[in-house]
């Protein structure tokens, strides 16, 4: 079995005051090591919710999520935190870099959270920043970088610890089309090197970089 993520009958309902809002209405899917999945669909279709469940950031209302064969839907906060810190890399729409840390420090912080320190951490940080083309921007603070550079620094942060899975939530949402295409190509290259990626986007051009595309609507997978 080569699966990294398996979802079984996933349902998620948000409670907004007195109103129950269903975000996922029963998802069954499997992601295998080396996959590049793009989940597309309109806003509010539940794609980010699904990503949060895969990323061990949230728990389903019903159903189960398996990470490397282990049911994470019943795990406690410490166990989920450990999985996130060691095995999952996150890429966010708004980059979410620490504003007071430079590019290198941002990447190093992620490595420290994964328990990697010292010379090894320094070497892995530099490798990751080189991999995304930011060797000459290591000492720059996020505010001193363009949007595209910030997102590449965020990708470096996500890949530095060599995670088993990268989850990218609208990574091109805050970038112009040119920079967006570049980020899409970067993700595709990472996948070519064996990195498993799940990408959530409503940009079909970026989604075209993925090996498999699934479309969601109203909390369900359409195709």
């Amino acid at each position: 079995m080569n699966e990294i993520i398996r979802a079984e009958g996933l349902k998620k309902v948000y409670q907004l005051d007195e109103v129950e809002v269903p975000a996922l209405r029963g998802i069954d899917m499997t992601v295998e090591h080396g996959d590049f999945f793009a989940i597309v669909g309109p806003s509010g279709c539940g794609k980010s919710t699904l990503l949060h469940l895969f990323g061990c950031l949230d728990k389903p209302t019903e159903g189960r999520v398996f990470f490397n064969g282990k049911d994470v839907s019943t795990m406690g906060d410490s166990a989920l935190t450990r999985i996130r810190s060691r095995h999952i890399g996150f890429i966010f729409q708004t980059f979410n870099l620490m504003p007071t840390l430079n590019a290198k420090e941002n990447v190093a912080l992620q490595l420290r959270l994964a328990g990697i320190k010292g010379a090894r951490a320094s070497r892995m940080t530099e490798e990751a920043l080189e991999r995304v083309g930011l060797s000459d921007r290591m000492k720059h603070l996020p505010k001193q970088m363009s949007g595209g550079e910030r997102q590449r620094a965020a990708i470096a942060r996500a890949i530095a610890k060599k995670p088993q899975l990268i989850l990218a939530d609208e990574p091109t949402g805050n970038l112009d089309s040119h920079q967006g295409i570049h980020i899409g190509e970067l993700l595709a290259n990472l996948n070519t090197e064996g990195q498993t990626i799940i990408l959530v986007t409503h940009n079909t051009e970026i989604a075209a970089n993925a090996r498999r595309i699934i479309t969601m609507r109203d909390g369900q997978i359409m195709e």
Partner: protein
Amino acid sequence: MWTRKTRTVLTILGIAVALELVIMMTTIVDFTERSMQSELAKYSGAGQIYVRSHEVAGMAGHEFPPVNSILREEEGRQIIGEVAEQVDMELTTPLIFYQLAPPPYPNAAPEALLVAVEEDKVSAYIGEEPVVKAGMPAFSGANAREVILGPMASLYFGEPDVGDEIQIIGEPLRVISLIEGRNMEDRLTMNVVLMPIETAQSILGQSESISAVLITSARLDTVGSLAENIRNNHPKVSVLTQEDIAANLDTILGQTRFFFNMINYTVYIIAAVVVLIVMIMAVTERTKEIGTLRAIGASRWLVLRTILLEALLIGIIGSIFSIPVAFVIDVSIGYGLREIVDAWSLVQILITAVVLSALAAVIPALRATRVNPIEALRYE
């Protein structure tokens, strides 16, 4: 960033100023305590007993000097006569106390205090070896219109020279000597306006009354029995030994300490609340960063530790800054902080402040650990 820097600097400054206030309050308590201990030490081994009228209602403890006490001179002299064989007569005298100028601050001695002794018993009150600045501290006769001034009293009367006349309750008196205190805390000598007892009775218009009797026991080990005898023979008078005066000073000191401690606790609470508010604001402002940290694998414990460390750092920097601020203020008012506040008190104040800063951050830190990464990531 700038907003955060400004707020952090202001918080550190707030803590520094608050601690400076605590240091000053501690200084004042220490100063008062040492002053009173020094005053108490003056009686230590002196074998002195003060006989005075019973306390006036509403007065706390054994008031000293007994300015409100009134004794019949005849009774006072009778008491002296009864114990004459057991006392040092050179240092035993009737006394009159009269407040010429009120105390400059609560619990302090009057700024100028008329003290009258028998004309040849000056040393009974100011000691056998007073520090003389000018003139001879000895009266020419029982009715001599002469005064000896302590430094604070001299200041009150416009710093007259020896030979000058000063007006006391409308009467002219000649200054025959100026004396100094043994040190800055010598409260008995500082404010004294010393004159012969008959002169004082004439000025005050109380020819047959005195305030108290000062009895100096010939032997230190008989002070207790001497006081007891006087109490038994004269139940209508009050007898103050050194222990009574010590108890009185202790009561006053206790009240002073309580008052200043209340101010200190309030200041500590204010400093803690400042840190609490700043840390709550910092956590609220950094919800997105904290959420990101949690998302990429920071544990709740790490978040808690980070916030507490930040507060601890603010407390430490504020504490360190408070010392130079306190010394600058101290030098500017010439209070002599370095001589008064000991290093251990200072260390205790600083440790309390740092611990309080960390404790004040516990609530915001716990709040930070409850940040939901998903909510934080949506937070724009």
